[in-house]
């Protein structure tokens, strides 16, 4: 089978060497596309980098000016505040909904549960930017689908400006974001639910435990590890929300729904293209997300060990 006359010892690489060879392409690419840019972003964030500097190829040192200006910018403070508010809202609502829906679609004796289970993954297939545009049609003040439905049901008399009102814009984006990302959370919790032995529930029922008691003392403790995983993953991804903001509010109205990734993007890629300061703001975002990432690694590797 091996075609080497069974004398592999002579030709075979040691596991160490083989490991290096097999990882070489991945490591090269990751150094090029992940590690180097992260270091280079740090360099850019400490220098003056605009379109003029890009053309000349010289980036003068500007003595932490990017960071000092960043922390004096009220818009950056607002973007950070909005990002945290958005993330907390999305994560809390999503986890609660996902637990409820996962329990619901686990009831396979109900035909509506089977139908919901069949449809739950649909939003995962929708591209984020498309999702944003669909919701901008849903929310449109004059022509929106949501207002059409509410008019038809007689629930409103005047159109509601869902995404154009500074008090509700961020929440409107949050609903669209939750719609797209909910399937992942439901799926993970549903998979964990199926891993809980039936006997546990049956024994508790025999002992007279109510449905709530069984959920509180059997299901919830067994779901805790996956719930924590979802909390960490969703927190760090929601911190970087971009597409739905771009499509629904563009940070508006005014700057009511500015978030961190949108702030960095606008600063860097629209005139006057302050790339140095954009890199500084992105670095702050990376630092926040990095803390969660390290927490995640410690969590899952402790559990495996």
């Amino acid at each position, binding site marked *: 089978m*091996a075609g080497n006359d069974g004398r592999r010892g002579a030709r075979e690489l040691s596991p160490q060497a083989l490991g290096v060879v097999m990882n070489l392409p991945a490591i090269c690419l990751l150094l090029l596309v992940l590690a180097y*840019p992260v270091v280079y972003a740090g360099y850019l964030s400490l220098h003056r980098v605009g379109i003029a500097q890009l053309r000349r190829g010289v980036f003068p040192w500007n003595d932490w000016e990017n960071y000092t200006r960043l922390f004096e910018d009220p818009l950056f403070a607002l973007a950070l505040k909005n990002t945290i508010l958005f993330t907390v809202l999305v994560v809390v609502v999503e986890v609660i909904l996902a637990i409820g829906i996962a329990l619901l679609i686990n009831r396979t004796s109900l035909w509506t549960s089977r139908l919901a289970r069949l449809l739950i993954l649909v939003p995962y*297939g929708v591209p984020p930017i498309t999702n944003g*545009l669909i919701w901008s049609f849903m929310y449109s003040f004059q022509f929106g689908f949501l207002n059409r439905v509410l008019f038809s049901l007689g629930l409103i008399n005047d159109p509601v400006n869902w995404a154009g009102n500074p008090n509700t814009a961020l929440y409107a984006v949050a609903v669209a974001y939750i*719609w797209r990302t909910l399937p992942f959370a439901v799926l993970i919790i549903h998979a964990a639910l199926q891993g809980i032995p039936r006997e546990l529930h049956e024994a508790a029922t025999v002992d007279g435990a109510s449905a709530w008691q069984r959920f509180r003392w059997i299901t919830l403790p067994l779901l805790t590890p996956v719930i924590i*995983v979802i909390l960490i993953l969703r927190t760090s991804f929601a911190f970087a929300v971009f597409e739905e903001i771009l499509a629904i509010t563009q940070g508006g109205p005014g700057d009511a729904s500015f978030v961190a990734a949108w702030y960095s993007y606008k600063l860097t890629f629209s005139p006057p293209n302050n790339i140095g300061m954009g890199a500084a703001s992105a670095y702050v975002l990376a630092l926040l997300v990095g803390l969660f990432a390290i927490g995640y690694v410690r969590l899952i590797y402790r559990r495996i060990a």
Partner: protein
Amino acid sequence: MEPRGLPRLLMHLANGLVILFIMLPIVAVVLGSLQPEKTLQGESRRVIPSEWTLDNFTVILTQGQQKGRIFEQATYLPDNIKSFYRAFANSLIVALGVTLLTVGLGALSAYTVARLKLRWALLLMQANVVARFMPAIVLMIPLYVVVRSLGQLNTLHAVILTETGFLLPYAIVILVPFFANIPADLEDAARIDGCTHFQAFWRIILPLSAPGLAACAVIMFIISWHELLIPLILNSRPEFMTLPVIVASLVGDVHVFFNLLMAICLLSLLPTVFLVALLQRYVVEGLSAGAVKG
């Protein structure tokens, strides 16, 4: 123990609400794309329009050649709508390229993590898990500067390489548990028969992990089909735009109304929604392997 009476009714009701929430935007995009601008504007309080049309799709799919009845008088159509096929092809090239590279390179790397028992490979794995959290915007600012200085803006290969680097950690994270789950006996038996480690990987582990490779591939395809920020920043010329970039370019274009917008939205979501529906089992397995099995 099955619920009866009122609890059962409440569960049906809750399921109804879940289904309504999932389907409402889908109904909106379908209804929006099948009507003319006239009814969309004139009947702003009706859900079901009085007039139906396929012209929105006709104008996109014929790249503006056939305008149909509703765009007869239209003097302006955004160029990006006319390059639909080009964008579709670009998206396909990028997504297939990224899928092949991430699954190929990811499998090589995941094998060393899962089966070779190397201390540093485990560290590499942890670095991959951390890398997965890196927001794209953080990488794209320096990468824009680098790619620009190399004169590689507006190319498909820069997009493919960047997305591959960006997604490779996730591919490895998905593949490792599949490789780790294959019984050690099979590989040991092959080793006794004279296989090298690499031959054991190639002839035993890879074929037995076919479902895992498929799960990883379908997820990689979906994510790269959806990716906006990387091609948006690297490619600004219409002939190199991918489908999400075309869709994003229509945001805020006052000449494009929701009927045409919803038609292009529907066209852009169909491929991956079909993929998710057809390959549901693999999507579910891949996502849960990548999230909790570490």
